């Protein structure tokens, strides 16, 4: 196993405030890596820096061995890094089908005039894109609603569509920003299975932000914990779970004192 994503002392300051401070981590090829932390810990800012949406104040991001720091979002995406958004950002007015076709067509070579005049290359690429997109819609069970506007889907379907849209980029690294937000426990379990299945099928590496500790504990092979922009812990779920700093960040000083008294407080890992 080798590191697919390597982050070296990444920092972001907004005005005087350090949203992310000197965070380093590396994600191995094929693993599901979790990034957790309380609200406002800097997780989404961290994602935005990985995907070119926010320019880091300092630090470096390496993807598959090459530096991607400072690239524009579409450049990062075309290298094989796909993401979802915490607050779902589908192309709400476009059809479910088009939502999945758009990322797939970023690899097309035909230009505007090929498209307008229907050149053989453009027609073939259009067919290939549509077929690939349809397969992804099958995967998320949305083929029956393929022509409806994406914004009209119920919440859970929109979450799944957003993952399918990210997969349409044929990425090597998938970044999921709180994919389980707003789901009930059984939906969360289903989502965890889905993420595992997708990783197997597409030979992916997954980095996910999650607020929900139990889900991450069950799903991820390794976890990094952010608090106030700093990485306060990193390791396997078992290691992180009982780390006093993590317990304090999540449960406050009270529990830490209890932990110091002897019984060893841990974050719960059941859903």
């Amino acid at each position, binding site marked *: 196993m080798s590191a697919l994503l390597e982050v070296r002392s990444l920092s972001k300051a907004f005005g005087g405030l350090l949203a992310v401070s000197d965070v380093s981590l590396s994600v191995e090829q094929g693993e599901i890596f979790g990034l957790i932390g309380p609200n406002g810990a800097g997780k989404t800012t961290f994602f935005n820096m990985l995907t070119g949406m926010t320019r880091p104040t300092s630090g470096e991001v390496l993807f598959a061995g090459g530096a991607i720091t400072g690239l524009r979002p579409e450049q990062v995406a075309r290298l094989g890094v796909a993401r979802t958004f915490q607050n779902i*950002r589908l192309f709400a007015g476009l059809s479910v089908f088009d939502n999945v076709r758009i990322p797939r067509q970023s690899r097309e070579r035909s230009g505007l005039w090929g*498209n307008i005049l229907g050149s053989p290359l453009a027609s073939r690429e*259009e067919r290939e894109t549509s077929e690939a997109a349809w397969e992804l819609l099958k995967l998320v069970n949305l083929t029956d609603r393929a022509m409806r506007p994406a914004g009209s889907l119920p919440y859970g379907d929109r979450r799944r569509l957003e993952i399918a849209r990210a997969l349409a980029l044929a990425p090597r690294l998938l970044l999921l920003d709180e994919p389980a937000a707003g789901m009930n426990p059984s939906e969360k379990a289903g989502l965890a299975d889905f993420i595992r299945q997708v990783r197997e099928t597409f030979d992916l590496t997954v980095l996910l932000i999650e607020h929900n500790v139990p889900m991450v504990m069950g799903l991820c092979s390794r976890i990094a914990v952010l608090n106030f922009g700093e990485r306060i812990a990193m390791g396997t779920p078992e290691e992180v779970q009982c780390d006093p700093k993590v317990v304090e960040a999540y449960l406050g000083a009270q529990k830490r004192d209890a932990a110091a008294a002897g019984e060893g407080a841990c974050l719960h890992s059941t859903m």
Partner: protein
Amino acid sequence: MAAFFDLYGFLCIMILQQALLGYSLYFPLMAGQLSLASIGFYSLGGYVAAIMGTHPAFEAWRATLGWLMIPLEWLAALLLSVVLAVAVGLPALRLRGIYLALATIAFVQVLNVVVLNMPIAGGAVGIFGIPQAFESRFAYIWFFGPLLLLTILFTLRLERSAAGRNFMAVREDELAAGAMGVRTTANKVLAFVIGCALAGVVGAMSAPFLNTWNARQGTFDAGVACLAYVLIGGSRSKWGPLLGAALLVALPEVLRPLKDSRLILNGMVLVLACVYMPRGIAGLFAGRRA
């Protein structure tokens, strides 16, 4: 029939011509960009055709090329528009929403002042006596008709192709489009340039049609009228610019018996249309079908 064309021929051509200007704003809007630059490119294209059609420097060209001079004028207007649109678009399209609209207004104003100060453009008087391409005004349908047809066909194809979906992805959510590999800047510039190039060619066709050309062709009011065609017609429909232009160009004619108060009513129609047809005329049809 002949009587109808005598009476309304000019009006029909005006509708086609104005609809084309509406389409020139439809393309940037398809990529979510509110631009008012088209009228500047229309004015520029008209000047190109007017100068090539009247200036002594082009006398030899006109003598040699004959009627071929006219398509050459279109081509010159097209190329100049594309070059200028790229030069203006690349920096300006970094701006979002109303900022872009304001930057394009500023561009048109600067262009007008520059043109007024260029001796070759005839100053405030402009250029007149531009040679007619046809005997009758109505024959200009052979200019604007095919161009409008091509534009609509282009729009139809665009909407169903990867290129059009890229535009619409940028319109729906620029940030997410970037994250999904869509080259946002390139697509915004492309949509802008298509619109500007169309406006430039329409200007080049309009100079002989209107016989004279001056800075009043590129006023802010005229620019906003183009936007009104799209919005009143329906900015999400390929028929929107045509429907909007048909209504708004014909309206002052229909209201002509009211004389001086007709422009007041024109304003009222704009307001009422915004309030009661938020999705434009095309939206009314779509709503009925659904």
